[in-house]
């Protein structure tokens, strides 16, 4: 039968090898997916399963958990550490780590507080200054890493202390600066939500964009004599995504609606996802994380890639700090300390970005931070102390890393990267 086909129509370029079986249709897509999971290519599956479990448990313990007002609060809380986790994804992609993101975020909030409230700078300028400081700190790590070969683990651990010291220094004896209520920044962090029509429109865009780009790819691949994925599958997926997102938005709109801050976070995630998957820079990041020497010999400027990764990470950390200050309406000595650091790293790893470099996605920051904030929010609703929250978050992180390691081993034994 296949022989008959191959004589009647020329085979697509990538379908000429008879040894490879290609799954077709929706049943085939499901089988291919199961095959991938079995061989350790888990993608976002563990985090989605984890999320379902966590939400089921907390809802059964306290139905308020899934109320739309609680979920809107959850989204506000997600955005600050989520942006920091997005930076962590960048450094994890190249197989490095930044342990000082918490300190950098605290320092950034202190810079904004000092310059804006105490020195009377315009708010935009003080935010820019905080971001610039963040990028500068990351560039310093990259310099230490590239020129002196200092492991990022150590340099950022040193940075954790040094930057915390800088934060305490500029906050001075007062220890805390209150940001004025009613200012745009604080409103952005606490109150501002999208008008309903904007939120419904934005929720429709991802699906439509997927449809347009999918159809264009289909046409181009057909024209180029390459096999193309089925249009039916594409339409099914687009329909699921559009309906799913619109339902979520409709549910959240029953309460206050989608926070603009969360919109900013998701926008950054989408932009980073594009940069990591569809640009030469992103390809180089993945290559450097996978095999640094191979990337160097392929003519990639490895040092520049490391510089961009560290600088972006600190930049996002600083932005997360500014958002956190807006959320709390204050810049204090406690900002960025405690569990901020590890929550950000845990979010990236729980979301599916590998600690071993070369594998990951911007979406892991989004998914991971929702898991972490769900745990925090659920335990707060149960009126449990932070001691228990730390233990549970720690256990979830450990499980995430175990899943990552096991999946990595399984991939190796199944001959996948």
């Amino acid at each position, binding site marked *: 039968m296949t022989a008959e086909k191959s004589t009647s129509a020329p085979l697509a*370029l990538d379908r000429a*090898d008879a040894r490879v079986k290609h799954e077709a249709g929706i049943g085939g897509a499901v089988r291919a997916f199961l095959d991938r999971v079995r061989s350790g290519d888990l993608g976002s599956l563990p985090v989605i399963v984890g999320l379902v479990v966590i939400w089921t448990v907390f809802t059964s313990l306290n139905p308020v958990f899934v109320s739309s007002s609680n979920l809107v609060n959850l989204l506000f809380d997600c955005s600050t550490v989520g942006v920091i986790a997005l930076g962590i994804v960048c450094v994890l992609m190249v197989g490095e780590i930044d342990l000082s993101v918490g300190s950098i975020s605290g320092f950034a909030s202190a810079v904004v507080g000092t310059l804006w409230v105490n020195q009377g700078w315009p708010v935009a300028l003080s935010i820019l200054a905080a971001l610039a400081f963040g990028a500068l700190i990351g560039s310093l790590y990259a310099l230490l890493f590239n020129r002196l070969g200092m492991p990022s683990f150590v340099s950022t651990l040193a940075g954790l202390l040094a930057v915390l010291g800088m934060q305490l220094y500029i906050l001075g004896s007062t220890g805390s600066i209150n940001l004025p209520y009613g200012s745009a920044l604080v409103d952005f962090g606490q109150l501002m939500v999208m008008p309903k029509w904007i939120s419904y429109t934005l929720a429709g865009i991802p699906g439509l964009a997927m449809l347009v780009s999918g159809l264009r790819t289909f046409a181009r691949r057909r024209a*180029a004599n390459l096999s193309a994925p089925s249009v039916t599958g594409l339409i099914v997926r687009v329909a699921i995504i559009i309906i799913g997102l619109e339902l979520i938005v409709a549910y959240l709109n029953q309460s206050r609606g989608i926070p603009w801050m969360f919109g900013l976070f998701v926008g950054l995630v989408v932009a980073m996802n594009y940069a990591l998957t569809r640009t030469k*820079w992103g*390809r180089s990041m993945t290559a450097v994380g*996978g*095999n640094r020497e191979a990337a160097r010999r392929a*003519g990639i400027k490895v040092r520049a890639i490391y510089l961009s990764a560290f600088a972006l990470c600190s930049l996002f950390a600083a932005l997360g700090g500014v958002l956190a200050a807006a959320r709390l309406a204050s810049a204090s000595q406690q900002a960025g300390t405690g569990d901020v650091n590890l929550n950000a790293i845990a979010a990236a790893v729980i979301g599916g970005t590998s600690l071993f470099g070369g594998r990951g996605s911007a979406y892991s920051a989004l998914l991971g931070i929702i898991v972490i904030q769900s745990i925090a929010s659920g335990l707060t609703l149960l009126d449990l102390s932070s001691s228990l929250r730390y233990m549970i978050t720690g256990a979830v992180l450990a499980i995430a890393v175990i899943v990552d390691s096991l999946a990595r081993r399984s991939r190796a034994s199944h001959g996948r990267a």
Partner: protein
Amino acid sequence: MSESLEGSASVGELVLSLRGISKNFGAVSALTDIDFDVHAGEVVALVGDNGAGKSTLVKILAGVHQPSSGTINFGGKPVTLPDPRAALTLGIATVFQDLALCENLDVVANIFLGNELSPLRLDEVAMEMRAWTLLNELSARIPSVREAVASLSGGQRQTVAIARSLLLEPKLILLDEPTAALGVAQTAEVLNLIDRVRSRGLGVVMISHNMEDVRAVADRIVVLRLGRNNGVFEPDASNQDLVSAITGASNNAVSRRAERLRMERDHSGSAQAGEQRP
């Protein structure tokens, strides 16, 4: 058959010509006064013992090291190769011994690594098409170019590495130990590949320790010994000649065995002659 082979070798113009290349690492002279020519459509095997300077020579050609003295002529013009980029842009592609592939990227991404089409909006369709064209030209058997390289066998990876070296339309390909890590079937596959690359009119320089492989594809065998030219051989040169050129000693296991065989033959011959004598 052999005539046509020689014909194709002599038709090719001179691609690369090294004159008096020396390379010193401190007090050590890794290469001394090396002359080396490669023509288009010719496979030149570079053989020699460990420390003979083969890899140093290839690294000079790949732009990794700079020669201490001597001239490099490429395509008839004197050139300098200050870095790997320069070598690539001139048209000298290198397939390193460890292949230098990223296992976490798929075949297309590896072939185009560092040379992606439309950097701000990767053109995956065009890249995949070009990748298939390259692989098909090499009659490569890669199941899917969208699989990560980690899932490929050693021979398939070698194919990907060679396909990548062909991407920039080089005039000269350097292969460092292309068969060292491969099994019998895969070795044959790679040797076929080298044949096809030659038939596309490219110059090929191949380093190998395996004389069988060298004889199978090489048009000329250049022997280095202790950083100096130590003879150029035809592929049908005897093993004994090659080994003594490589080791510099005429007294070794190979030569002793050949000597023994010759003695036995002579001996039995003279014995027979003796018997025939009445």
